[in-house]
C-alpha cells in the first residue's frame, strides 16, 4: 500500500508547483461560508413553535455547509491543481543518454593513467547512475558520426522520430555503455543533442563527453558529464600526393602534421607501402622537430609508377601524444599512377593533340569506330576519355572531355557556330576556372550549345553556352564548344591552365579516387561496384564487408572497390583526419538551442492532467450555478 502510494505521488510532476501555494487560500473559502452563515441568521418573532419541530428540521448547530460549498471547494481545488501544471509520468524519468564515442574520446585521460577519456566517461557515467531514481528509463545514443540509438542488443539503429523506442533500466544501460566501442569518426553532438531535445520524448538529456555544453535560454533538461582535460596531441591532418606537373619535376607524398595542447618535440615519420595483400614494407623514415601548437608539412618523394596498393604514413612522436589513432594516414597508389587518357578522334592524322606531353598522363588514340568496339574492360583502364570533334551517343561511367562536338550530336546539340564569340559570363567559383582569366580565352570560333539538361553552363557567350560541365553515371564530363588543343604547355598558358583544370577536375569527381574521412559513407546502391575488403590500417583490421547498400566507412585504411563486370579495381583511402577531434588541447563547447526547444520538450514530460482538472472545475461550477439559481428561485417564491 505505502510503496504504491509513494510511487504514485512520485509519478506526479508539476510544471508550476508554486501555484499549489494557492491552496493556502482554502480557509478563506471556509471563512466566506461561515460569514455567509452569519448573514443567514434570521430574527424571528419567536422560535417557540420551531423548537417543537422534529430533530431533523432542527439539527444541532454546527458548520454544515451546503452542497454548494463542497462544489466550490472542489472547483477551487481542481483549478489550483490544473494551474500547477500537473503531469503524470510513469514512475521515474525518461532520460536520453548521449554518449560521445568520437575520436577525441580515445585520448589518454588525465584522470587515470593508461585509460582513455572514454574509459573515464564510462566510469563517471556509472557513478552518476548510482545517484539516479530507480524507476528511471534510459535511452542510449551515440553521435559519431551521426545520431544513432544503441538498442538493447548493442545494435545501432537510426533514430526514427515516429517510432517509439523501448527504454532500459540503469543496469542495462550501464552494461551497454561498457560494451560499446568508440569510433574514429568525428561527432555531431550539437545536432544530435538538439534533435533529442526537440523530439520532446525525454524528460532529461545527459551528455557524456569531453566537450562542454553551452546551454542558452536556461534549459533545465540537460546534464553534462565532462571528462578529460587538455592534453598534448600530435596528429596527421592531411595526406596528399603531389604529382609531377609543369611546376614540379617529381612526384611526392606530403603529410601535414599538426600539434595541439602544447605538444612539441621530436617525432619520426614513417612511409610504408601496403600491397593489396596487406603486406606492408617501410620505405622511408624522416625525423622531424614538431612545432608547438603548429602545422608542419613532411614530404616523401615516390616513384611515379608503382604496383596497386596504398601508401601509409605513420607518426611516431617521442614525447606526449594523446591519440594514437590520428597518427596514421593512408593514400591509394591509384592516385599516384600515371593517368591513362583515351582519345577518340575521327582524324587519326592529328595525333594525340599534344596530350602525351602532359606529365603524369599516357595517351591512347582511337577512332570513333574503334572506340565503339572497345570492351568495357578496356574502357575502364582509362582514367579520362577525350572526344575530339566527335561525341558519344551516351554518357558512361568514365570521366569525359568532349571538345568541339558535331552540332547534331544527341547529347549536347549545338544550335549555332559563331566566330569570335564574345564571352558574356562564367561561373567564377567553379574549379574548372581556377587561376583562369576567362576573358583571355578569346576563342576564334565556338559551337554554341542549346540549354542542356545534362550539365551546367560554365562559360557563356552572348549567343549561348559554349562550355558545359556536369556529372552523370557517377562520372564527370566537360563539353567545350571551342578548341583548346593541341596542348602546347607554357606556349599557350590560357588553354593549358584550362586543360589542366579540366583533367584535374574530371579525375577528382564522384565517388572514385577520392579521399574519405572515417565516419563517412559510401553509397553503392546505384553503382556496379562492390566493396571487397579492407587492407592495412593502423588497427590491422581485415574483414569482409556487406557488399551492397550504403556502407559506413567506420575504419581508417584502404578500401578496394571491385567492378562487377570487369576486373578493374578502385582503391579508396579512408582517414581519421578530424581537426576538431584531434585537437585535444582545447575542449570545445557545443551549443544547444534556446528555451524554445525546451518548451517543446516539456510537452512530453508526462501525461498532462490540467485538462481533466479544468473539466472537473467546469462541471463543479456549472452544478454550483444551477444550485444557486434554484435556491434564489425558492427564496423568491
Amino acid at each position, binding site marked *: 500500500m505505502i510503496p504504491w502510494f509513494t510511487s504514485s505521488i512520485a509519478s506526479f510532476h508539476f510544471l508550476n508547483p508554486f501555484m499549489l501555494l494557492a491552496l493556502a487560500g482554502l480557509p478563506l473559502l471556509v471563512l466566506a461560508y461561515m460569514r455567509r452563515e452569519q448573514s443567514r441568521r*434570521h*430574527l424571528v418573532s419567536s422560535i417557540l413553535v420551531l423548537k417543537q419541530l422534529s430533530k431533523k428540521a432542527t439539527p444541532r448547530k454546527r458548520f454544515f455547509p451546503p452542497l454548494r460549498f463542497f462544489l466550490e471547494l472542489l472547483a477551487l481545488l481542481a483549478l489550483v491543481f490544473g494551474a500547477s501544471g500537473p503531469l503524470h509520468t510513469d514512475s521515474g524519468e525518461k532520460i536520453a543518454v548521449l554518449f560521445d564515442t568520437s575520436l577525441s574520446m580515445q585520448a589518454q585521460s588525465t584522470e587515470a593513467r593508461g585509460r582513455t577519456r572514454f574509459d573515464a566517461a564510462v566510469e563517471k557515467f556509472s557513478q552518476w547512475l548510482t545517484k539516479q531514481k530507480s524507476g528511471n528509463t534510459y535511452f542510449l545514443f551515440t553521435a559519431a558520426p551521426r545520431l544513432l540509438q544503441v538498442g538493447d542488443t548493442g545494435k545501432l539503429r537510426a533514430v526514427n522520430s515516429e517510432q517509439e523506442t523501448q527504454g532500459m533500466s540503469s543496469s542495462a544501460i550501464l552494461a551497454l555503455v561498457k560494451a560499446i566501442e568508440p569510433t574514429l569518426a568525428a561527432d555531431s553532438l550539437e545536432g544530435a543533442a538538439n534533435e533529442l531535445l526537440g523530439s520532446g520524448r525525454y524528460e532529461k538529456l545527459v551528455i557524456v563527453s569531453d566537450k562542454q555544453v553551452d546551454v542558452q535560454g536556461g534549459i533545465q533538461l540537460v546534464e553534462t558529464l565532462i571528462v578529460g582535460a587538455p592534453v598534448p596531441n600530435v596528429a596527421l591532418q592531411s595526406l596528399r600526393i603531389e604529382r609531377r606537373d609543369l611546376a614540379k619535376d617529381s612526384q611526392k607524398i606530403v603529410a601535414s602534421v599538426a600539434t595541439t595542447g602544447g605538444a612539441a618535440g621530436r617525432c619520426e615519420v614513417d612511409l610504408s607501402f601496403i600491397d593489396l595483400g596487406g603486406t606492408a614494407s617501410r620505405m622511408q623514415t624522416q625525423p622531424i622537430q614538431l612545432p608547438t601548437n603548429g602545422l608542419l608539412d613532411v614530404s616523401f618523394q615516390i616513384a611515379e609508377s608503382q604496383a596497386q596498393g596504398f601508401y601509409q604514413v605513420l607518426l611516431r612522436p617521442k614525447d606526449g601524444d594523446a591519440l594514437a589513432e590520428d597518427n596514421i594516414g593512408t593514400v591509394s597508389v591509384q592516385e599516384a599512377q600515371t593517368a591513362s587518357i583515351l582519345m577518340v578522334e575521327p582524324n587519326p592524322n592529328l595525333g594525340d593533340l599534344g596530350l602525351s606531353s602532359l606529365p603524369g598522363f599516357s595517351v591512347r588514340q582511337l577512332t570513333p569506330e574503334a572506340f565503339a568496339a572497345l570492351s568495357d574492360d578496356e574502357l575502364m583502364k582509362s582514367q579520362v576519355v577525350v572526344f575530339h570533334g566527335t561525341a558519344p551517343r551516351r554518357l558512361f561511367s568514365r570521366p569525359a572531355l568532349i571538345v568541339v562536338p558535331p552540332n547534331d550530336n544527341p547529347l549536347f546539340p549545338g544550335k549555332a557556330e559563331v566566330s569570335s564569340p564574345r564571352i558574356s559570363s562564367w561561373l567564377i567559383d567553379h574549379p574548372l576556372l581556377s587561376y583562369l582569366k576567362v576573358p583571355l580565352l578569346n576563342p576564334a570560333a565556338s559551337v554554341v550549345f542549346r540549354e542542356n539538361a545534362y550539365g551546367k553552363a560554365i562559360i557563356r557567350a552572348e549567343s549561348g553556352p559554349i562550355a558545359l560541365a556536369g556529372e552523370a553515371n557517377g562520372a564527370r564530363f566537360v563539353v567545350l564548344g571551342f578548341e583548346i588543343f593541341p596542348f602546347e604547355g607554357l606556349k599557350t598558358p590560357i588553354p593549358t591552365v584550362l586543360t589542366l583544370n579540366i583533367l584535374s577536375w574530371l579525375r577528382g569527381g564522384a565517388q572514385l579516387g577520392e579521399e574519405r574521412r572515417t565516419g563517412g559513407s559510401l553509397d553503392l546502391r546505384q553503382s556496379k561496384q562492390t566493396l571487397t575488403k579492407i587492407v592495412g590500417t593502423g588497427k590491422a583490421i581485415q574483414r569482409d564487408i556487406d557488399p551492397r547498400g550504403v556502407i559506413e566507412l567506420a575504419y581508417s585504411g584502404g578500401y578496394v572497390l571491385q567492378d562487377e563486370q570487369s576486373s578493374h579495381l578502385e582503391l579508396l583511402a579512408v582517414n581519421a583526419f578530424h581537426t576538431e577531434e584531434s585537437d585535444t588541447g582545447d575542449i570545445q563547447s557545443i551549443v544547444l538551442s534556446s528555451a524554445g526547444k525546451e518548451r517543446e520538450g516539456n510537452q512530453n514530460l508526462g501525461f498532462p492532467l490540467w485538462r481533466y482538472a479544468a473539466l472537473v472545475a467546469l462541471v463543479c461550477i456549472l452544478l454550483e450555478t444551477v444550485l444557486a439559481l434554484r435556491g434564489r428561485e425558492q427564496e423568491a417564491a
Partner: protein
Amino acid sequence: MQDPFTPAFFRRLERLRIRTKRSALGTREGTHLSLRRGQGLEFSDYRPYSAGDDFRHIDWSVYGRTDRVYVKQFRAEHNLEVMILFDGSASMGLPSGERKFELARDLSLALGYVALADGDSVIFSCLGHKNTPKYYGQSAFPRAQRELLTIEPKGSFSLRTEIRAAVAGQKLPARCYLISDFLIPPEEQQEALDFLRGKNFDVSVVQIIAPSELRLELPNSGTMVDVESGEELQIALDATSLREYAQKLGAHVEYLERYCRRVGIQHLVLSSDESLSDVVLQKFPKAGLLQ
C-alpha cells in the same frame, strides 16, 4: 399609512358599546348596570316605605293588594372601567412589515374610543412600556392616540409580571382586553390570564398572528434567532417540516383557545393583515367583545 380613525369610522364606533358579562362597578354614572342599587331605570326590588323615600317610587299596585306601602328599588348605572392591555414586546414588531403591533395598537384605540364614547373610563397599557392615565370622555381620545403612537415594540418581559404591574393601580374589577401574539409558552399564557381572572376582570383575549408566521415563510435553512430571548435555533426545513409546523402552531393556538373557553374568556384570533374596521365593526361584535 392612512389613518384609519376617520370621522366616518368614529361615527360607526359610537354605535358600539363595550360588552361585558359582569355588572359595572364604576365610580361614575354610566350606562352599565351596576350591582349597586341606585337611580337607574332597571327595577331591582321592593322595600317598605321609609320616611324620606321618594313618593314617585311607591308601588301603588302592591299597596292595593296588600294595604302596605312599598317603594321600588332600582339598580344603579355606573360607568365601566376599561383596561386595554396590548403587547409592546419585540415579537410584536416581527415579521417586519406585517404590522402586528400597529394592528394591536389601533384595536386598542378603537376599543378605547368605543368605551370613551359610551362614558366609560379607559386606561391603555402598552405592556413593557407604559400605562396611560385614566381617560374619560371622547375628547380624551386624541391625547390617548398621541400617547400610544410614540411607542415602538421592543424588549422582552414576562407577560404576567407586566400585566401585574399594569393593573396594580386598578382597584375595581375592570373590563379587560388583552391583545398580543401570545407566542409564549402556554403556561405563561395561563399564568397571565389566571392573574386577571383572579382580579375579577372581565377578560377578552385577542391573538394577532402575522400571515408569514401562519405559513412559516422562512429560508429553508439557517439560524433563527428569537428576537426577545436571543435564543438561536438551526433549522433545515422541508415539506414535511412545514406541515409539522402548521400542526404545532395550530396546537399552540388551540391550547389558548381551549383554556379561554374553559374559563369563560372570549378568544379571538386575527391575522395582522386584516383591516381594522372589519375587525372592530364586524368581528368584535360577532365575537361578543363589543355590542
